[in-house]
C-alpha cells in the first residue's frame, strides 16, 4: 500500500487529525496523526485497512516532546504500517490501543514505565519490567546512567 493510497483511505475518516503520510523504507508508510484521533485511526487501520496484528508500541523522548509509535502488520498486504503521534512533554497521554489490539497491553505498560507516557483507559497501567518503587523513567533523555568510574567509587564503599 503506497503512502498516497493510505492518505486517500485514511483522510476521510480522520480529517484534519491526519497530519501526514510519509514514505518509510521497510514499511508501507509512516502515518503521523494528532492524538485526538487515536482510537478512530486504530479502528480504521485494523478494520478498514486490515492491519490486524500489532507488532510494537514504543515511545521516544525528544526532550521538547514525546513521540509514540505503533507498528502494525497486515496479512493481506504483507507489510508493516508505521503510525506515530507527537505528545507534549508536559502532558504526555494518549488513548490506549488495548480495546482495538489486545496485544498493546504489555507494550503500553512498558512505554509508560520507560518514557513516562500515560495511556488513557488502559486496563492495568503499572510497571512491567522495573519494580514498582522505581520513581524514575529510564529512557528519558534527562535520566543519565552511572559513569563507570563513579560506579567504582560507589561500590568500593559498599
Amino acid at each position: 500500500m503506497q503512502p498516497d493510497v493510505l492518505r486517500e483511505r485514511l483522510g476521510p475518516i480522520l480529517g484534519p487529525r491526519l497530519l501526514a503520510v510519509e514514505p518509510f523504507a521497510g514499511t508501507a508508510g509512516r502515518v503521523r496523526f494528532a492524538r485526538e484521533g487515536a482510537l478512530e485511526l486504530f479502528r480504521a487501520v485494523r478494520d478498514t485497512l486490515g492491519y490486524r496484528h500489532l507488532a510494537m508500541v514504543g515511545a521516544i523522548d525528544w526532550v521538547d516532546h514525546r513521540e509514540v509509535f505503533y507498528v502494525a502488520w497486515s496479512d493481506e498486504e504483507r507489510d508493516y504500517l508505521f503510525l506515530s503521534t507527537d505528545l507534549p512533554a508536559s502532558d504526555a497521554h494518549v488513548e490506549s490501543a488495548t480495546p482495538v489490539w489486545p496485544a498493546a497491553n504489555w507494550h503500553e505498560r512498558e512505554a509508560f514505565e520507560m518514557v513516562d507516557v500515560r495511556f488513557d483507559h488502559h486496563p492495568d497501567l503499572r510497571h512491567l519490567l522495573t519494580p514498582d518503587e522505581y520513581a524514575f523513567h529510564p529512557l528519558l533523555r534527562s535520566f543519565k546512567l552511572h559513569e563507570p568510574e563513579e560506579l567504582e567509587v560507589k561500590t568500593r564503599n559498599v
Partner: protein
Amino acid sequence: MWINMGPQHPMTHGLWNLRVRIEGEIIEEVDPEMGYLHRGIEKISEDRHYNEVITLMDRTCYVAGLAWEHLYIIAAEQALHLEPPERAQYIRTLSDELQRIASHLMWYAAFVQDIGLMTPFLYAMRDRDLVLDLFQSYTGARMTYEYNRVGGVRNDLPTGFTDRTRKVMDWIYARFVDYDHLCLDSDIFHRRCDGIGVLSARDCVDWGVTGPMLRSAGVRRDLRKDRPYAAYDRVEFDVAVADGADVTARYLVRMEEMRQAVRIVRQTLDWLDKNPGPVLADRLPRWLGAPYAPVGREGYLLKRNFPTGRGFSSVEEPHGEAQAYVVNTGGEHPYRVKFRSPVFANIAAAQKYLPGYRVADIPPIMGSVDICVGEVDR
C-alpha cells in the same frame, strides 16, 4: 490458591515469575511477572557507538545471538544509509539458519525436560555443541559472537568451513529421526501434549503472537517469505505449518523448521563456495569501520555532519518475528533503539492459553512457547 512459579523454578527456563491461581489442579488465572532480567539494554545502547551495540545484542537473546545481531544491523544500516555486500548477506543468512538450528535444539532440550524426558536433553545438547563449534570456527565465540558489523560482517569464513558444515549438517539431519522416535513415537508424549495449550489463529493475531506458535495454528506467515531480507529471496525453502495449535503442533513446526534450516544452509554453502568476494562494505564512515579507529568518548565528530535517518527492521528469529527501530540523529550514538521481542507477546498471551488446563500442563505449554527471558526484559 495462588502459587508462584519462579523466579527460581525448574519450569521457567529463565528469570521470570508465573503466578498461577489454581483450584484443585485446574488453572484459573495466570499473571506473568517479568523484569527480573531487565538490564536496560535500550538505555545502554544510547551511550554506545553503532558497532558497540552489537555486543549487547548477543546478550539480549542469548540463544539466538546472531539473529538478533542481524535484526539490529538491518535497522542500523537503514538508518545510516549503508548497503552490505552480497556475500555478507549470504553469510548472514547462513548464520541465521545455523542459529535457528542451535536455538531450536536448545528449545528441544528444555522442552523434553519439562515433560520429564531426560535423555533427549543430552542428545540435543550434544548436537547443539557441534553447531556452536561451527560458530566458534568463524566468529570466535560459542555464544556471544560480535560477528556482524554495520556494513557487513567482521571476517570471511575460514578455509574448510563449508565442508565441515556439510558434514555436521548431515549428522544432525540424521539425528532428527532419533528425536522423533523419543517424542513423536511415544504414546505418553501424545497423552501429555495433544490438545493442550490451544491458542486459535484469531487469538494469535489479536495478541500479537508470532513465530512457531502462530504457524502451529495453521497461519502461513513467515517473514523470510513474506518480506524477504538478506538472501532469503534467493534460497528455496518451505514454511512449516501445522494445524492443531497445541503443543504437539508446535513441536512439529519446530522440527520441520530445523529440517528446512538444514536445507537453506546447504544452499547458502553452495553459493558461498562459488562466489568469493568482500564481506564488508567499501565506503564506511571512518567511525564505523570498527577495527580501524574508534571515535573515542569525547566526541571528535562534532565538526562533521552526518546524515540522519530512521531504520526499521523485522526478522524471523527462531522465536518469532522481532522488530527493531533505530533512530539516527547524526550523532555517533543512536538516539533511540527500540526492540520488540516475539517472546514478549507470546508470554503476554499466557492469560489466554493457560487457564483451564492442569498444573501439570504448565511445563509443556510454557516449554512449547520457547521462552528466552533476555529478550523479553532487555
